[in-house]
């Protein structure tokens, strides 16, 4: 079976519970077990080849240019871990089926579990470190889900987040480390990397890569000082703990160190970092485990300790130590998984995991007692169990190791670790199973059904068998794995008895000392209680809380919803960047002569400047500010005329009046005065920013106006061809409707959308809370009588038609003289506004049932059709044509297809402006405006009224 398929099987299995969700718990368990079993079978089929020293690979191109490929390999190490993962996984599936209660969503559990299994299997079968990274992080994610499985438990959620954070941190560091490593090795494929030892260790990036990768491995394998997350992960259901936190996930770090052992190990850096960390972790974990009251916590710290042990062995960098490490990985997995399951059974049956509340279970739960005792003795390193074998090997290696010239330092500490280990193992057995039975267990304990104890039983049988027949039971696997780890063929002699060696003496010391410590346990507990230990969880919580608070504070302060700050940042950024860019470039100085200043333009300029000043000074009087807008608009328009831009002047002035009308309509409902709510300091600061921006922008304009074009502008072509090719003399208009008609198409769309937005908003406002508020509206200003004065009505009757005629004129002539569809649309809008002001919107609207929506739509479509029309002539969108038409009896006049486009512009502008006004006046009508029946309030010709 292809390694890729083996790695994929658990993921397929993860889908099954979801698909079979209605079939019940057994089906879910069986389907997952089947998937695991098939994968295990597939793996085992490769055993002969691996024993023959082959490496089974499968290569799938995924992202070749990055070097990320779905390459899988099965060698001895992968085989060892694969068997552990799948084998213990199978047992866990069986165990969990019986362990989880009726209320727990089992399908979800199995899905998570299979996801995890797949991720884990992926790690050990990857032949590409980037692929390995992916599976690595997947184990973090799936374990997050598993630890938090009991959502209602706060410890579960916190433990899950802690595990994710710590292991995630390591994983992220590993990303960097792996990228560096792959870069040095020239490939991300493990097969290639394993060949690159010299290159890697000679590289200046060796140490950073090593540190980063080890950070990943240490966090995952709960090495000091990252060991603290593991006990908190115990909030997970016990099957999870047994699987993740003894047999598999925490071994991922060890796996990685073993996997990269040929490349990374053997240097002093490796030795001091890895071996020291492992040693410290081993001793510390064991020390803490001695005092834990919670069974699972005790086992968790024991796991930490054993992981430290294995890490230390790997850190020694010798082949024999590596063999010992591999062997202990197997042994630890068997006895620790069994112990966790035992603890789970005790918890399940007795209702508590607290050692203080237990004791005397030997008679009540004999099967559990046997299983637990055998496993615990193995953990303590009591012969003839498998734990003894590998511990012995460890002690021997420790005896050989020299730390900074001290030959026995490591040996002493290792012995101490083993001593503590004996103590807590025996304590586990003694204080749970021995002693008198109690009568205050939360549940009445008895042995569980076969389903629950079968899985640990299988493991315990292995514990015994490996201990008795190490060479037969595990030798081949250790050979294969150790060969893979060291890169050279290993055939260690695994045996129970090696004679009286220093290791045996150390072992004996540990045994005796351990028993002694157990006897003194109560006193030890008192000493332990008296010592102030920093609580790792409290530190972690404090750190995360501090980081969170800092993030909250920073985010809140920075993005506090202040528009003014956003604008200030905007202005300053623009000014500083602009100034920097300009000052670092070259400027030749002014090359264009100045236009002479005439007195009248000077007066106009003064008017503009004064109006701006007044605007700043008086802006809080809003109506006055609008009058000032009128002056500014007037002056800007005049300057456009003076500077040869009549079209601009026409547009600017008509837009200005429509804008003012809109603002007045809105101001009717807004406060008429702006409250002063900024302090002097803020105003001074704002004034500074504003002045700076004004100076910068003005200076930029000045520089531009005094510089020549570096190249001839494209507008020369437009001037030359406007008449010939565009059929119009007003070049600006020809540009708008022809050269750059597409811009104009977009522009009228903008206007149309603006009107639609306004309309939609009005609808929403009228239907919502604002609508109710408006119905009860009380005007905040005194209102005069005579809404529709006679004189205005009468004059408008003349002005409106005249303005319409003027609009038509401007529209038709725009191609050749200032004007065009846009200005015409505005003129007609302004004319209609005057009609509305004279007799009211409702009255006028009743007499003119133009749908402004339709006008906008028709405008855009007219413009679009004019553009699309060109397609039928085989020309691109918006290609125009023109000709001179001569109607009989009339002189000829020009007809350009661009005029159809201009008509679209006209309709769209008219529709948009009127729809916007319509919306505002609907708001006003909601606010108690009545609909007038007559065009004027006072009409003396109607004697009937008043």
């Amino acid at each position, binding site marked *: 079976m292809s390694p890729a398929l083996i790695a994929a099987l658990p993921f397929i299995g993860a889908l099954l519970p979801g698909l079979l969700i209605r079939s019940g718990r057994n089906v879910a368990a069986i389907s997952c077990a089947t998937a695991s079993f098939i994968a295990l079978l597939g793996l085992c089929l490769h055993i002969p080849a691996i024993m023959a020293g082959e490496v089974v690979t499968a290569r799938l191109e995924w992202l070749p240019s990055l070097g990320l490929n779905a390459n899988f390999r099965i060698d001895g190490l992968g085989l060892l871990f694969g068997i552990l993962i799948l084998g213990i996984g199978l047992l866990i599936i069986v165990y969990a089926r019986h362990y989880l209660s009726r209320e727990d969503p089992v399908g979800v559990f199995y899905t998570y579990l299979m996801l995890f299994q797949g991720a884990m299997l992926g790690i050990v079968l990857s032949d590409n470190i980037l692929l390995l990274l992916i599976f690595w992080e997947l184990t973090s994610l799936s374990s997050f889900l598993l630890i938090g499985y009991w*959502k209602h438990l706060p410890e579960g959620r916190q433990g899950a987040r802690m595990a994710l954070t710590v292991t995630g941190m390591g994983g992220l560091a590993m990303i960097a480390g792996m990228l560096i490593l792959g870069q040095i090795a020239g490939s991300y494929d493990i097969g290639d990397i394993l060949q690159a030892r010299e290159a890697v260790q000679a590289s200046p990036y060796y140490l950073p890569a090593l540190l980063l990768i080890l950070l990943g491995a240490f966090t995952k394998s709960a090495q000091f000082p990252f060991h603290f997350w593991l006990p908190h992960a115990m909030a997970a259901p016990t099957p999870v703990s047994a699987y993740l936190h003894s047999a598999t996930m925490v071994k991922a770090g060890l796996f990685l160190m073993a996997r990269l052992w040929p490349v990374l190990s053997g240097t002093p850096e490796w030795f001091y970092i890895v071996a020291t960390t492992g040693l410290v972790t081993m001793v510390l974990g064991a020390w803490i485990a001695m005092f834990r009251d919670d069974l699972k916590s005790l086992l968790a710290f024991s796991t930490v300790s054993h992981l430290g042990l294995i890490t230390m062995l790997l850190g020694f960098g010798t082949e024999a130590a590596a063999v010992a490490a591999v062997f202990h990985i197997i042994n630890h997995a068997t006895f620790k998984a069994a112990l966790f399951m035992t603890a789970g059974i005790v918890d399940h049956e007795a209702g508590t995991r607290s050692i203080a509340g237990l004791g005397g279970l030997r008679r009540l739960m004999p099967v559990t007692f046997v299983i637990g005792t055998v496993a615990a003795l193995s953990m303590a390193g009591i012969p003839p169990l498998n734990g003894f074998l590998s511990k012995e090997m460890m002690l021997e290696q420790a005896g050989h190791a020299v730390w900074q010239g001290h030959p026995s330092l490591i040996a002493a500490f290792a012995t101490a670790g083993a001593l503590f280990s004996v103590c807590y193992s025996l304590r586990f057995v003694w204080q749970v199973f021995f002693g008198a039975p109690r009568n205050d267990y939360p549940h009445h304990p008895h042995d569980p059904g076969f389903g629950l104890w079968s899985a640990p039983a299988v493991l315990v049988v292995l514990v015994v068998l490996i201990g008795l027949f190490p060479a037969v039971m595990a030798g081949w696997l250790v050979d294969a794995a150790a060969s893979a780890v060291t890169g050279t063929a290993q055939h260690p002699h695994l045996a129970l008895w090696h004679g009286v060696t220093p290791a045996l003496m150390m072992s004996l010391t540990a045994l005796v000392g351990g028993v002694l410590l157990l006897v003194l346990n109560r006193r030890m507990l008192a000493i332990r209680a008296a010592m102030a230990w920093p609580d790792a969880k409290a530190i972690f919580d404090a750190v995360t809380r501090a980081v969170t608070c800092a993030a909250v504070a920073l985010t809140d302060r920075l993005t506090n919803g202040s528009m003014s700050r956003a604008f200030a940042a905007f202005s300053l950024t623009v000014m500083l960047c602009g100034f920097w860019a300009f000052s670092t470039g070259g400027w030749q100085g002014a090359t264009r002569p100045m236009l002479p200043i005439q007195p009248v333009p000077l007066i106009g300029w003064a008017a503009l400047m004064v109006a701006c000043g007044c605007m700043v000074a008086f802006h809080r009087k809003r109506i006055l500010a609008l009058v000032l807008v009128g002056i500014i608009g007037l002056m800007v328009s005049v300057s456009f005329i003076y500077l040869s831009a009549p079209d601009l002047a026409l547009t600017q002035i008509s837009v200005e009046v429509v804008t003012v009308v809109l603002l007045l309509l809105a101001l009717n409902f807004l406060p008429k005065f702006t409250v002063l709510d900024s302090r002097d300091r803020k105003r001074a600061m704002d004034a500074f920013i504003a002045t700076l921006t004004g100076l910068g922008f003005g200076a930029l304009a000045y520089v531009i106006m005094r510089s020549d074009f570096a190249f*001839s502008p494209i507008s020369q072509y437009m001037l030359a061809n406007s008449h010939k090719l565009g059929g119009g003399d007003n070049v600006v208009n020809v540009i708008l409707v022809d050269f750059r008609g597409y811009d104009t198409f977009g522009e009228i769309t*903008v206007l149309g959308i603006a009107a639609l937005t306004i309309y939609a908003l009005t*609808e929403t406002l009228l*239907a919502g809370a604002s609508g109710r508020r408006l119905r009860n509206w009380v005007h905040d200003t005194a209102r005069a009588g005579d809404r529709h004065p006679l004189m205005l009505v009468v004059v408008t009757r003349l002005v409106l038609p005249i303005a319409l005629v003027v609009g038509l004129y401007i529209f038709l002539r725009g191609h050749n003289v200032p004007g065009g569809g846009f200005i015409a649309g505005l003129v007609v809008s302004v004319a209609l506004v005057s009609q509305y002001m004279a007799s009211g919107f409702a009255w006028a609207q009743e007499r003119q049932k133009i749908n402004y929506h339709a006008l906008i739509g028709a405008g855009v479509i007219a413009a679009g059709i004019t553009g699309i029309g060109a397609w039928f002539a085989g020309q691109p*969108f918006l290609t125009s044509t023109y000709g001179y038409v001569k109607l009989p009896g009339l002189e000829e006049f020009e007809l350009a297809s661009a005029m159809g486009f201009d008509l679209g512009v006209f309709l769209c502008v008219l529709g948009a402006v009127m729809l916007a006004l319509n919306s505002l006046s609907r708001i006003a009508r909601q606010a108690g405006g009545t609909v007038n029946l007559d065009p004027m309030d006072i009409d003396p010709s109607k004697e009937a009224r008043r």
Partner: protein
Amino acid sequence: MSHLIIAPVILPAVIGPLIILWMRNDLMLQRVFSIAGTALLAGVAIYLNALAMGGDVHVYRLGNWAAPFGIVLMLDRLSALMLLLTAVLALAVQLYAVGSGWDRKGRHFHALWQFQLMGICGAFLTGDAFNLFVFFEVLLIASYGLMIHGGGGMRLRAGVQYIAYNLAGSTLFLAALGVLYSVTGTLNMADMALRVAAMPAEDTALLRTGAVLLMLVFAVKAALVPLHFWLPSTYANAPGPVAALFAIMTKVGVYGIIRFFTLVFPQDAVIEGVVADLLLPAALFTLAIGQIGILGTRHLGRLAAFAAIGSIGTLMIAVAQFNPQGTAAAVYYMIHSTLAAGALFLIMDMIGARRGDLWLRLEQVMPGNGLVAALYFIAAIAVAGMPPLSGFIGKLLVMQATRPAPGMVWIWATILITSLIAIYALARAGSIVFWKSYELGPAPVPAPPAATGPKLEPDEPIQDLGDAPANWLAVASVLLLLSGIVALTALAGPALRLAEATAAQLHNPDAYVSSVLEAQEGTK
């Protein structure tokens, strides 16, 4: 010259007005037409991708005017890709808008939606600097309309801020274009590229100013720090589907930077330092502030918004390399982050619809928790850049591309540390929303969905569709986006090849320039 090149602009530009003209009051018809239009747009985009795949740059001369004088549309790999991305995102999100009933909480949703697409597609297609401004405005004004869809005080105020800030941005855009025109005398991007390349060294001050101002304009749209202030409140207050569509809007800014700084201002003596000194630090700060914001906010909508900012940071780090490798990474990451941000906003909207609000605090257990939690989990993985989804691959690509860069240590450290923050923050948010509430007890029986939106004017009634909107459609649309992410992951090889081809084309602008300026046949 295929007329289909302009179809992504014309199609929505016709459907929008048609909806206004003939289907104003019939929501069902609007939905059918609008979705069909978007689907058609996606089809056109696929065709255009096939067209661009050949490696040629296709030119469409509007009004049949020759290149620097008239406006041209340009179809190259990048623009084709962006069109497709837009269409796919829009289609999925539109389905969500229909499924969740958002589209009937106010008027003209579908018309505005079409105009929004018109603006975005126009911006991606144009080869003219000023025309880019025009289509920016089209897409912006449509986005204003969509942003305040449904109304409400907070949303309107956020809308005012959004408009005001973008008006300032538009003003800056005009200033930048003015400066560039005042030096180069042209608006056509390819022509401008030629003229910039020929610019004498003593004349570069204005040119540099124009280039930097233009970069700031795009930085505003892309929400680069310190021009990002507009984004959180806008996205958090926008209707869910609109915020999801806005995932492409920040990319328009990124697109602008890529386009202009590969085509018009490739890194040479004239523009030297602009990118290295400004863009990269800004990108790093953006990444940091975005990811810190994910942790620092107490509102899920803002969380998604900060995630969007953070993703822009990562993206801009890649862009700021301005080499083919970096650009390829950017293109890949851009696709990923658009889909991921879109999905995240939709999921937040689902949470909001079920819980009533989006505050990160203890709430009633919500109905349909498991499904939404699963969707959230996947989206969070994608957003945080965790394996195995495309976010991780994208991040790897970005890191790989920045490895030879001078500030590599800073870049990597920022990327990795902020990733950790994001992971923690997303896990925290998820566990509060989906897990913690179980302390309160079991989920309530799903209530029938509340009345959707305000009643409309009696004289123009929108046809009510009877039953509550089909929620499966909403879920399906999220799944569509997530499956896009999965596809991007699984097909990372081909996707990256496409991105590399795109980057290669971008970094060889001569072909682009010559195809624009030489396509003179049939000139008036």
